């Protein structure tokens, strides 16, 4: 079951794209430009807010942000067994 945090991130992305009603976890967010370079900065802020993590912008691996599943693995799966 998805965490409340990743659902907050998914809702934020969907909120920017009213033409979409759902967002599968494997959709390539950056390649498809659902998140562009400007909104990427906001996405990082949303993830930090939802996860409590602090993200160093200069050491970011974009693969951690390419899909909802990747974001969940990188920022919302800590401590789970």
């Amino acid at each position: 079951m998805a965490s409340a945090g990743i659902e907050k991130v998914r809702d934020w992305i969907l909120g920017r794209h009213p033409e979409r009603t759902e967002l599968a976890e494997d959709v390539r967010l950056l390649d498809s430009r659902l998140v562009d370079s400007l909104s990427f900065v906001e996405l990082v802020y949303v993830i930090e807010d939802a996860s409590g993590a602090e993200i160093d912008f200069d050491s970011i691996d974009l693969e951690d942000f390419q899909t909802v599943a990747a974001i969940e693995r990188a920022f919302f799966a800590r401590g789970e067994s």
Partner: protein
Amino acid sequence: MTLRPGRIGIDVVPLSRVHGLIVDGDGAALHRLLSAAELSVSRTPDGLDPSGIAGRLAAKEAVFKLFHAAGQPVPWLATEILKSAGGWPEVRLSGRAARLAELAGIERIDISITHDEAYAIAVAVSAAHIAEL
């Protein structure tokens, strides 16, 4: 030493995006896009200037395109778009942006910014010296 022409980068930013950044939340995203010096020169007596900010953001992206750097985000704060003594926009690179420029063999970057109604557009051109044999 002679300068050889280099790469070109271009970008456009709708002013509507900047309005969103200014009004959303506490403006936290804006502080990750613009340095304190850039925010300072983007202020007018009426508040932040959306046209000036859109132009700066477009210029930062245009400069980033010169680097041909895949797999990493725009180094927003390390690519500052400020004003020269003559009022022309000029680029100041630091940190990761300066390293990317060095890796790309770029020694000089010139930019031009224009605004009209709902959009700001920026062009960046790089140059480097030709080594004399």
